[in-house]
Each structure stands twice: as structure tokens, then as C-alpha cells.
């Protein structure tokens, strides 16, 4: 009767006849047998041969079975080496001692070959089960280490991408829990060429790696397009289209995108599915709430996606507070959530906005007891002109092939005026001129200003005086969106002429529009106080360019950059 699987079996029995009989029974079942006459021999044989199963007489000279069992179990470690006690001990106390010493089963004399065979098979099953459990445990441990390592690597790679921006700028304070990335939270910040600060706080649905994979392409679009000077609407459209294309249907990304323009003294906001952000006065008072007005990114197709933004005034020293739902969903011992009400109380109690960030964190700590690992909190202070520190541009080519004698005419007409913004393309084209590269930021600002003046005041006929106060600001942008929507004709024409000069060159820009023009003398002579929100553009252009003047009743702007 050979066993299904041959085992190595140690038989320890002090009676010579019993030992002979037992060894023969076990051998006949197909196993390999080692024999010992006492406990000490049994332990020595165990060390030498590492048998898979042990049959142990309880009462033996030199070292009894109880002690031998303890030593063998200790030597076996985590592996299960089943021990079957051979005993004619009938009294309960003796049987209990066998179990406490590490015995797994008993076998009474007289030995029955059938019962012993069945017991050995049962013990072998247990032994294999334990081996499988150990193997799987080790495998899980290895997988776990592997996973953690992959997460570390992924985080390191992601940090390189994410921190290529300006999150470290002195006007930003943020907290992102170390593993927030793997909960789908995303925080990005970068300067546009004209020195605006762009900030994105995002939150992908889901947890773990799937929630993190969308972050890379999103960051790439954000940084790439911001650096090239694309507007909010174009960046949003591109991010939405990219996520819609790559994410599975049940995944999307809540996002709050901001553009802080020091030059215009305003912040442009788009919130799709993120918790309310807050616009705070210098004294900490809540000026307005940046609520979600859109569906998250990655849900709607391009035709139905809404890229309309809100523009709000934001003066130096005023602040924005952004947060992820991890803040609001922080739970206390009774599983109650922190919630918007408690956050609003912290905001209302605040007397010094510089301390607000800490006060929110303290309130969460007091409330929650156990910190969550997916909290993202961001405090942005509107910077002043002196503080502006745009990241330096890095160019890889030498500039020798720089073309210096050319001209270009570019006209945007009718329907194209609604969506298309030519400024980033034109700025990129002008980058070919080596001598102008140091002034890319200025070029971008001037072109943006001239283009939006031509479009808004020229083609759309909007009065800049509207932007005198906060309400006017909102009305102005509502009216802008309305008029753009019904626009059928009109044009903005941009002409470049580039000429070489002695050691450098000259760029002449003309921006002409189909509008009614404006009284150049009156606008330029307005007191600067009145220009606080409205007429800033023209002075900015005059300050940044080498020269600037207007002709044709304000319909055509002439600007020069000389290097």
C-alpha cells in the first residue's frame, strides 16, 4: 500500500520490538524511516535528516518524548513538522501534556497499520497546507515590497514632473500628504510667459495606482501649454480632451484651475467638481466663494465641454484658499465628517490670514484625531509686481540660424474669434529671434494685451470703464461671453515686420481691428487711480515695449521692440 507521497519519517521508541514493528508499518506504506531509541537521539537525527513527520514515544529514557517534541518544534521553526505521540497513556493528564509539548495527534498501542496510515495522510495534508500558507505569505510580502517600491519610484518620477513648476513660490503655501498622489490628488503651479501664475488642484476618482496614472498626462498638458502662454480655455479643453480619450468611462478628474494676473489685478477661475475655494480679503474676510460650476474633466466630449471661466478682481495681499475633499471628509471617532460648516467657522474666526492655513490644520487635528493621508490644502497670496519671479526659460539652440529680415500678416476673422487665440503661436514664432528671447515674457504680455483690447474693446465694443468695481467686473465678463456668442463677423489683424539693425534688430507690431476705435488721448491721460482695474492695459504696453502709439482713431496699435 504505497502512500500518495513518500515522506521521510522519524520513529523514536525505546522498546526494541515496538520500534521494529512501527518502522515496518511505516516503511510498508512507502515512506523512508529513521529510528531513534530515545529523545536525545531523536533530536540529533532530526537535525541531521530533517524528517517531514515524527512519531514519538512519550516515555523514553535519557530524554522523554515531551522534551524531544519541544526541541523538534523549536528547530522546525515556521514549517509544520507534525508530531504523532505514540502512547498508551490513558489518563487525561498525560494526553494534555503531549499536546502542550507540541504534539499534533496520538496513536495508542497496539498499533493499527490502517489507523496509522490514515493519520500520516491527514498530517501530511496539514503539513502541505501550512507550507502553502507560508509560501503565499512570503509571496504576498514580496509583492507588497515590490508594490511599495514601485510607488516610491512612481512618486519620484511624478515629483520631477510636478515640481518642475512653481509650487515653491513664496506666495504659495501648500500641504499635500505624502501619499495623496496615490489617492488621486494633484497640485500644479506654473508661470505663464507673461508672468501670470497658473494653479491647478485636481482630484481623480478612485484610489491607488489607477487614480494616479491620469496625473502624468494632465501635468504634461498643464506645464506644456502654460509655458507656451495658452489661455485657460485652451488648456482646459486640451486637458478635458486628453483625459476623455485616455481614462476609462468611470474615471474622471475634479479640478480647480486658476490664473492669477498681477498685471490685470484679477484671478480667472474654472471649478469642475472640486469643493468650494475661497477668495479672502487682506483682513481674512471671505470675499467670495469659488464654487463648482462645471462637470469634472474627462466626462464631456469636446462639443459639450464648457470652458467658460469667472474673472474676479484680486489685489496684492488678497488670498485664495483651495482644498480637496479629504479636508471636508476628515472623520472623527464617531465617523462624523468635518464638513463645510466647520471650515466656514474656522474662516469666520480667523483674524490674521497669514495664520489661516495653520488654523485649518489645527482644527482638522482637533476634530479628527487620526490624520487622513489624502489631504490637499493650498493657500495662495496675490503677489505684487516686485515679487514676481517667473521661472527662467531655458533654450537649447545657439540662435545662429535666427532669421532677421521678414514680415508676416495674420488675420483672425468671424467665427475663429470665438475660440482661437493666436497669441501663443505668434510668441512661439517670435522665439526664433534670438535677440528677443530675454523679453519673451514682455512680448507675451504686450501681444496678449493688444489682442484682447482689439477683440474686447474693438470687435466686441466693450467699454473698459465697466470694470471699475467688483460688480462691473462680473458684468463685463458676462457681457463679453454674450457678445462673443452672437458674433458673426469682424476681424483682428496682426502684422509683424522684422529688420536687422547694426548689432541687433527691430520688431514692428501692428494690431488692427474692425471696431469703432477709441479716444486715445483721453484714455492715456486718465489718472492712474482710475486705471486700477480698467485702463491698465495701455500703460502696460507702453512700459514693456520700446515704443507704442495708436493711429486710425484707436483702431490700429503700433508697437516696437528694439534690441
Amino acid at each position, binding site marked *: 500500500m504505497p502512500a500518495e507521497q513518500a515522506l521521510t519519517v522519524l520513529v523514536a521508541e525505546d522498546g526494541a*520490538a515496538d520500534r*521494529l*514493528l512501527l518502522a515496518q508499518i511505516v516503511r510498508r506504506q512507502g515512506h523512508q524511516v529513521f529510528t531513534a531509541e530515545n529523545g536525545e537521539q531523536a533530536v540529533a537525527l532530526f537535525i541531521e535528516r530533517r524528517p517531514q513527520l515524527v512519531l514519538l514515544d512519550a516515555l523514553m529514557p535519557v530524554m522523554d518524548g515531551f522534551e524531544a517534541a519541544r526541541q523538534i518544534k523549536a528547530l522546525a521553526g515556521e514549517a509544520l513538522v507534525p508530531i504523532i505521540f505514540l502512547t498508551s497513556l490513558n489518563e487525561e493528564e498525560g494526553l494534555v501534556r503531549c499536546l502542550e509539548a507540541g504534539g499534533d495527534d496520538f496513536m495508542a*498501542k497496539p498499533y493499527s497499520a490502517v489507523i496509522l496510515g490514515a493519520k500520516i495522510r491527514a498530517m501530511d495534508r496539514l503539513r502541505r497546507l501550512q507550507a502553502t500558507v507560508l509560501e503565499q505569505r512570503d509571496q504576498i510580502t514580496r509583492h507588497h515590497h515590490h508594490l511599495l517600491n514601485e510607488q516610491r519610484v512612481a512618486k519620484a518620477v511624478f515629483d520631477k514632473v510636478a515640481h518642475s513648476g512653481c509650487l515653491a513660490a513664496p506666495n504659495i503655501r501648500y500641504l499635500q500628504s505624502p501619499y495623496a498622489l496615490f489617492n488621486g490628488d494633484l497640485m500644479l503651479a506654473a508661470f505663464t510667459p507673461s508672468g501670470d501664475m497658473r494653479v491647478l488642484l485636481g482630484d481623480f476618482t478612485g484610489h491607488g495606482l489607477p487614480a494616479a496614472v491620469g496625473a502624468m498626462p494632465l501635468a504634461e498638458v498643464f506645464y506644456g501649454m502654460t509655458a507656451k502662454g495658452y489661455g485657460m480655455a485652451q488648456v482646459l479643453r486640451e486637458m478635458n480632451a486628453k483625459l476623455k480619450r485616455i481614462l476609462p468611462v468611470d474615471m474622471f478628474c475634479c479640478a480647480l484651475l486658476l490664473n492669477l494676473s498681477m498685471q490685470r489685478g484679477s484671478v480667472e477661475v474654472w471649478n469642475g467638481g472640486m469643493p468650494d475655494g475661497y477668495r479672502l480679503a487682506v483682513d481674512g474676510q471671505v470675499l467670495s466663494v469659488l464654487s463648482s460650476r462645471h462637470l469634472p474633466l474627462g466626462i464631456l466630449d469636446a462639443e459639450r465641454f464648457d470652458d467658460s471661466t469667472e474673472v474676479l478682481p484680486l489685489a496684492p495681499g488678497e488670498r485664495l484658499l483651495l482644498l480637496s475633499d479629504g479636508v471636508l471628509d476628515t472623520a472623527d471617532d464617531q465617523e462624523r465628517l468635518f464638513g463645510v460648516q466647520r471650515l466656514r467657522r474656522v474662516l469666520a474666526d480667523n483674524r490674521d490670514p497669514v495664520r489661516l492655513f495653520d488654523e485649518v490644520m489645527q482644527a482638522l487635528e482637533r476634530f479628527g484625531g487620526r490624520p487622513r493621508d489624502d489631504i490637499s490644502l493650498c493657500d495662495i497670496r496675490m503677489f505684487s509686481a516686485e515679487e514676481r519671479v517667473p521661472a527662467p526659460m531655458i533654450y537649447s539652440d545657439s540662435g545662429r540660424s535666427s532669421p532677421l529680415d521678414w514680415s508676416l500678416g495674420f488675420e483672425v476673422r468671424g467665427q475663429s474669434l470665438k475660440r482661437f487665440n493666436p497669441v501663443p503661436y505668434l510668441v512661439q514664432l517670435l522665439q526664433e529671434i534670438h535677440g528677443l528671447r530675454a523679453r519673451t515674457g514682455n512680448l507675451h504680455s504686450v501681444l496678449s494685451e493688444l489682442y484682447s483690447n482689439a477683440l474686447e474693446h474693438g470687435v466686441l465694443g466693450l467699454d473698459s470703464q465697466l470694470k471699475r468695481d467688483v460688480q462691473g467686473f462680473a458684468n463685463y465678463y458676462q457681457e463679453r461671453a454674450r457678445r462673443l456668442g452672437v458674433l458673426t463677423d469682424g476681424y483682428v489683424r496682426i502684422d509683424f515686420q522684422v529688420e536687422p539693425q547694426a548689432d541687433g534688430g527691430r520688431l514692428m507690431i501692428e494690431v488692427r481691428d474692425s471696431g469703432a476705435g477709441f479716444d486715445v488721448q483721453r484714455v492715456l491721460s486718465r489718472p492712474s487711480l482710475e486705471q486700477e482695474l480698467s485702463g491698465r492695459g495701455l500703460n502696460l504696453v507702453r512700459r514693456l515695449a520700446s515704443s507704442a502709439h495708436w493711429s486710425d482713431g484707436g483702431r490700429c496699435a503700433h508697437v516696437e521692440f528694439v534690441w
Partner: protein
Amino acid sequence: MTDMHIDHRVLSDLREVMEDGYLLLVQTFLEDSERRLSQLHAARSAEELGLAAHSFKGSSSNMGAVGLANLCQELEERARRPPLYGIEDLINRIDQEFFEVQTFYRGEQQRISAG
């Protein structure tokens, strides 16, 4: 009567299991038992006596010597509850019972050697 002394069901199992080793088993049992008996007689404490009786009980039962195994068990239990007055009588009965078992197994040896 061998039936009082030997369980023949155990015996036939033994023959089957041991195959060619049966003779060696019988011989080993007889030698081992001589040693157990002298241990019983030489025991100087209840504990020594109990241990020897326990071992003898085990090997007797394995060999189908039911009577001998029962007497050894009785001795093992008595040894656990001193005083041991009259214990010699029990040991003598074990001697006598072993004589019967010995006779039977010597018969087995001769039968097989002749066979």
C-alpha cells in the same frame, strides 16, 4: 488456552505486516521482555516500577499479549498509588503470564523455522 493469553486478530495482523521480519520481531520481543521483567524485579522505587510496567504494557499489547498487557496496566496503576504492600504477588502473576506468552511465541519460532 492460548486464546486467554493471545489476541489472534492482532497476531494475524502482525504476521501480515512483518512479512519476513516476523521471526526477528518475535525474537526481539522475547529478549526485550526478559529485560523488562528484570527491570520490574530490580525496581527500587514506585516510579521505576511504574515506568517499566508502562513500557512492558505497550510492547505486550503490540504483540497481542492481552493478558500480560492487562496485568502490566494494573501494576502501572498500583505503582502510581503507594503503598506497594502485596505488589510482589502481582509481579509473580506477571511472571507466570509471561511464561505462557513465551511458550506460545517459542512455538511460533519453531513452527516457522521448521516450516
